[in-house]
């Protein structure tokens, strides 16, 4: 199967464009293989993700897109029997190299999951959690400032500023998901991985998450896995299509949804797959 990796074309679609990038890949994946026991889930994936863009991963269930996403911050390490080949470079450093500090890696490469998973703690404590365990602040006032900023960055501050001490579990589903984003942002990651972050949300909450992603790319490199192709089209600058553990095509989102290079991609996004 031919695998074409086109250089992503950056499209600025906002009145507040992302900061200048130096054209260097923030994440560079080289011939990555991944195995669950003896089953190979990813086959020689090579891909570059430029800094401060949104890249969407699309593909049918079981195609390996979530597995691939989790290789970017070694979240698969916790699954027994898994094995990785190839390299994942973040700022030219191989995250699978011996001696890599995985805790530090996951601070730099944050993750938001499909189902919001707030801790049974207050809104404030949820956002402060990572800052506290990583000892990233020196005073309570600095901690409060970082929490406030993270909640503002997650577009949640105005909705919760008067009830920071109430339980996070009292928030709506959409608010809980933005709280989880705030929790990830509080420790100032460089890359944000999102695994179907809006799939369990209603259209209004989904829209807020999508607007948030659009704003966050000014500061972060964002990778989002989504089953919703319209969502990929709305929020991402580049899109990667996976099938049966292989990367079929990477292209600018505009090109991907109007004139993809690969027939397999075209068949998938026009609903004629299979």
């Amino acid at each position, binding site marked *: 199967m031919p695998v074409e990796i086109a250089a992503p074309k950056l499209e600025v679609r906002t009145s507040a464009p992302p900061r200048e990038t130096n054209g260097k890949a923030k994440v560079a994946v080289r011939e990555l293989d991944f195995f669950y026991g003896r089953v190979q889930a990813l086959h020689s994936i090579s891909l570059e993700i430029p800094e401060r863009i949104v890249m969407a991963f699309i593909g049918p269930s079981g195609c390996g897109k979530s597995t691939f996403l989790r290789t970017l911050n070694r979240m698969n390490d916790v699954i027994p029997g898994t094995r990785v080949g190839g390299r994942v470079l973040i700022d030219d450093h191989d995250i699978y190299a011996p001696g890599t500090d995985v805790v530090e890696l996951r601070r730099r490469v944050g993750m938001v999951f499909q189902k919001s998973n707030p801790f049974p703690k207050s809104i404030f404590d949820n956002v402060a959690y990572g800052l506290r365990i990583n000892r990233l602040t020196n005073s309570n006032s600095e901690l409060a400032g970082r929490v406030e900023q993270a909640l503002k960055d997650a577009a949640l501050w105005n909705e919760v500023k008067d009830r920071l001490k109430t339980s996070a579990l009292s928030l709506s589903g959409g608010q809980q998901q933005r709280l989880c984003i705030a929790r990830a942002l509080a420790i100032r990651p460089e890359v944000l991985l999102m695994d179907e972050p809006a799939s369990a949300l209603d259209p209004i909450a989904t829209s807020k998450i999508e607007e948030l992603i659009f704003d966050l790319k000014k500061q972060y490199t964002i990778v989002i896995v989504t089953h919703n*192709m*319209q969502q990929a*089209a709305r929020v991402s600058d580049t899109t990667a299509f996976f099938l049966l553990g292989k990367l079929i095509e990477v292209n600018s989102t505009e090109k991907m*949804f*109007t*004139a*993809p290079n690969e027939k397999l*991609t*075209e068949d998938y*996004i*026009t*609903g*004629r797959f299979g």
Partner: protein
Amino acid sequence: MDTHRHLDDELSSLRDRVLLLGGEAEQALERAMYALSERDSDVARQVLEHDDQVDHLEVEIDRQCIDIIALRQPAARDLRFVISVAKMAPVLERIADHACNIARTAIDLNNEPELKSVLDLSSMAGHALKMLRGALDAFTSSDAISAREIIKSDSEINDLYNHTFHRLIELMVTEPATATRDARLLFVAKHLERIGDYVTDICELTVYMAEAAFIKHT
């Protein structure tokens, strides 16, 4: 029925409708030119009476395109097809409008003594019809190569128009008594020349649909 089958059916229905509209435009032009060359005002009036159906068909296609975009959210080749059809339908409707204008001119001229100079216009009309048929065939088969060839052939209709223009001006000077009728024929020639341009638009849309290439104004 699964989703893509449903979409396929809708796209197929849309294709049928736009081809029907193309057929109507083609027939209107053919009949209008027949009314002019054979001095048959009844046929000219049939062309005018039929134009409401052409307009109705264009509106139906518009609605269908909007429905498909809103409800089916087509992508890639499906999106290019729907966008091409949405832009093609008004072009075909305008071709039919030009045919109506020719039919009106035929009625006016048929009430006056016959002129000799219709021959060149038949040649222009024949070329315009050939282009239109070819464009509809190219669209049907998503044939960008043929579409590009038809675009090139528009220069022939432009040449015929220029020739006709100069010939009619000469006639106006040498035979002033026929100047009004010659001027009407000049308008017919202009309508045919514009139809050639519209056919070019259709072919450009076919190239976009087939290859995702924008060749307009290139």
